């Protein structure tokens, strides 16, 4: 695969055509996918680009400082749009009824006050760290999910067509081959012309030969009219991408491990409370999770969906009813394989003295520990591989136990 620092930015925070949603998957089945015990684990990583306001999504309503800090956009347990109480302390945004149902059924969990090791506030560096799995920015040769694939026993190549996304997100880029698909309806060049061009490139420009060959194969593998993007709102497009992805992943010979990226979470102004802009996006995310649940059918029971973002947002709203770049946030887990019904948090509190740099939710859990716990639970990766290969130099962030049932 070709690597690039900016590649992922083709998908958009404020995207038009694709509504800021993309999908890519591992090109192979894990060898144990059809093992005798019938367990056939699937993993979907959803990256929310732009920095999700964790305090607005899973609100610490029980914290006496929350309502003051989040001000006009704070959630409340009462009112016209009450937040959904997850326990006596945390409440879920009312735009997420599906996640709430999964949580009640113990198939969804929240990890709060979580962050990658990155402590500055640049989206682009923050996304590098989140997706590369390295402790610092600038490492963009490969993503942690791709390095995890490299250590999995490789079975047959997936034969299903693949879904939306003009580029592979960094988290899934690297040596392990991946597939994706650009959903456009354009009359195609005929095979003969394509083969002649590949031949020319082989003689003159091997890099283009390789890129074009891959592009041609992907196109052949792609299928299904219903996976073309349609104009519509961003929330509908999140659902649509998830529906396509779930359909592919449900197939016996479909991909088992995939990544999606949803853009648009950079809510600097007029973020909205129980209704408004963030609510709209969260509704899209909630719908996407429901699409995975229904689309994967029986396979949902072996599935974990991890939702993560590059960092959180300021605990106190800014001067424009939004939030600026912050630090601690949430991660979400959903799926039949999740040991759910829990908000996992070592809550730092929201008193000024407890905030990171007196402005952000202080992270008390390393996001890598959460992801390592999922990878271990789903695929049995060892502590050592996780600490050295998948998340280099992360031995101190030990895999969280008991996330997967």
């Amino acid at each position, binding site marked *: 695969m070709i690597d*690039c620092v900016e*590649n992922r930015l083709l998908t958009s925070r404020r995207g038009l055509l694709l509504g800021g949603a993309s999908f890519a998957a591992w090109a192979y089945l894990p060898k144990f996918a059809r093992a005798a015990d019938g367990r056939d684990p699937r993993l979907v990583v959803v990256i929310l680009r732009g920095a999700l306001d964790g305090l607005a999504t899973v609100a610490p309503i029980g914290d006496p400082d929350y309502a003051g800090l989040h001000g006009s956009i704070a959630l409340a347990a009462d009112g016209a749009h009450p937040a959904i109480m997850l326990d006596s302390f945390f409440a879920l945004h009312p735009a997420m009824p599906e996640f709430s149902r999964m949580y009640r059924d113990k198939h969804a969990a929240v990890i709060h006050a979580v962050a990658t090791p990155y402590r500055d506030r640049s989206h682009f560096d923050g996304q590098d760290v989140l997706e590369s799995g390295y402790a610092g920015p600038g490492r963009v040769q490969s993503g942690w999910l791709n390095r995890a694939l490299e250590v999995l026993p490789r079975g047959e190549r997936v034969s299903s067509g693949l879904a939306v996304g003009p580029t592979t997100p960094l988290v899934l880029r690297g040596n392990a081959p991946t597939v994706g698909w650009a959903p456009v309806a354009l009359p195609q060049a005929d095979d003969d*012309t394509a083969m002649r061009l590949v031949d*020319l490139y082989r003689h003159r420009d091997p890099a283009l030969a390789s890129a074009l060959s891959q*592009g041609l194969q992907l196109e052949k593998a792609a299928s299904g009219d219903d996976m*073309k993007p349609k104009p519509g709102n961003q929330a509908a497009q999140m659902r649509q991408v998830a529906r396509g992805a779930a359909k592919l992943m449900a197939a016996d010979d479909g991909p088992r491990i995939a990544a999606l990226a949803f853009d648009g979470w950079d809510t600097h*102004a007029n973020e909205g409370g129980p209704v408004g802009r963030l609510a709209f996006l969260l*509704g899209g995310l909630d719908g996407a999770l429901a699409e995975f649940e229904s689309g994967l059918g029986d396979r949902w029971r072996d599935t974990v969906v991890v939702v993560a973002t590059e960092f959180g947002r300021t605990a106190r709203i800014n001067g424009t009813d939004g939030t600026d770049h912050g630090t601690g946030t949430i991660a979400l887990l959903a799926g039949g394989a999740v040991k759910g019904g829990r908000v996992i948090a070592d809550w730092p509190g929201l008193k000024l003295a407890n905030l990171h740099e007196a402005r952000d939710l202080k992270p008390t859990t390393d996001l890598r520990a959460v992801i390592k716990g999922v990878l271990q639970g789903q695929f049995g990766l060892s502590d050592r591989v996780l600490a050295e290969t998948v998340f280099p130099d992360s031995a101190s962030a030990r895999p969280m136990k008991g996330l997967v049932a």
Partner: protein
Amino acid sequence: MARDSQAALVALNRFGFGARGGASGDLINAASDPRGFVKAELARPSGVLLEAPGLQSTQQLGQAVFAYQDQVKQAREAAKAAASTEAPAQAPADQKPALRRNLSLNAAATEVAGQMADARPADNAAKPETMQPNMAAPQPAKPAPQPLNVIQKTFRAEALARLQRATLATCGFTERLVVFWSNHFCISAGKGELARIWAGAFEREAIRPHVLGRFADMLKAVEQHPAMLFFLDNQQSLGPDSRAGQNRKRGLNENLAREIMELHTLGVGGGYTQADVTSLARIITGWTFAGRQGQLGAPGSFVFNTNAHQPGPQMLLGRTYEPTGLAQGEAALADIARHPSTANFIATKFVRHFVADEPPPALVARLRDVFIKTDGDLKALATALVDSDEAWKAPLTKMRSPYDFLVASGRLLARVPEDPGAYLNNLNLLGQPLWSPAGPNGFPDTNAAWAAPEGMKLRLDIAAQMGARLGNNIDPLDLLEFAAADAASIDTRKAIERAESRQQALALLLMSPEMQRR
């Protein structure tokens, strides 16, 4: 001769938009004095300006949007009054009316993109030749679903003026510089109706006048332009202790201040802290544009709103800025423009764009020194690049961006666009929607972004469509002479000679490394 053609290829492809077909003689002219050919455009700074009949100022366009929005509102209210019963019950749970109103600016832009994307398959199924980027003729068979509104019309007129300029330019070096700086200081039309209607005017007013001028002047023009203030939310940012901040209980928004330092000047790691971000955000409170009521000034024009400006001195990057109103921010920007990190950041990005993904360090260092010594003279920067040996010796490894590719193809085919529609559609397909990058960091500028598998396949499909439509009327070997002459590889020449049809030959030529690399 081969060596001259090679230098001519560098002159036209690395620095410009490629050779024009027809009787231009571009390649021969460039071969006789490659450096002079490129630098000729730098001698005419006024040539960078873009004026075309019908293109309006930011202020006029702002007022046009306000008037249009009023119209839409009135029409909506009239319709509501007419059919009052069923509307509320139909709104889906996640699309509250209030939210819809907030999103409507974006939604319109999305619809435009969506309609364009949606229109293609239907068109293509019936008549594949309509995929031509140079498609001049209107499409009579297709009834327009709705007449274009003023925002869509303006966007297309601005796009067309830019495309025509790029297609007609002799070398295209200054147009390439415009594209570079416009992407460096990008806004996104996807932000909303104002951003969409202003996208072209922003480039004409804030970028073009300074492309061969001073960086500090461009920086100031950009950060005070209503399009940028809107794109990065500064018009909403109020000094917490300002009169407006106190009255309205609102305050700072850091978005623009952060991106000024991270993306426009110092670069991430350029030596600023979170405290500096907040401080600069305070300093530029009050930088806004007058709204539809015109209380602060002519609607749609930049204004400094003292009432929103944070009072008091501010500490930024180790220096104190006294409370001098608008001048406080202008002094801060002037100092940031002169910061050594800015010189380094700009020189690196400039060399990466024109020479190689991995920019030669010696060349970067030289351009950085020129930037510092000339106090950010961008003409001197461009001249130093053209004068360098590295820029002529480095192999042509950079991939043309989709915009470069489509413009270069139009030039070679000698077709001046009369309608921007097909270009805009193809840019959307290839992941570079005009003036609409995904984030404030602009479109990517490396091979990995533009030589990705999906993108290559799509380029081939587009080239095949161009071949199908235009292959009949041209001799691909003649075009190869225009494009590269004896700098063309023997393999490319053979592939074109042996093609099974002129159509196929043209597709192969457009996709050849000589046309794809720069």
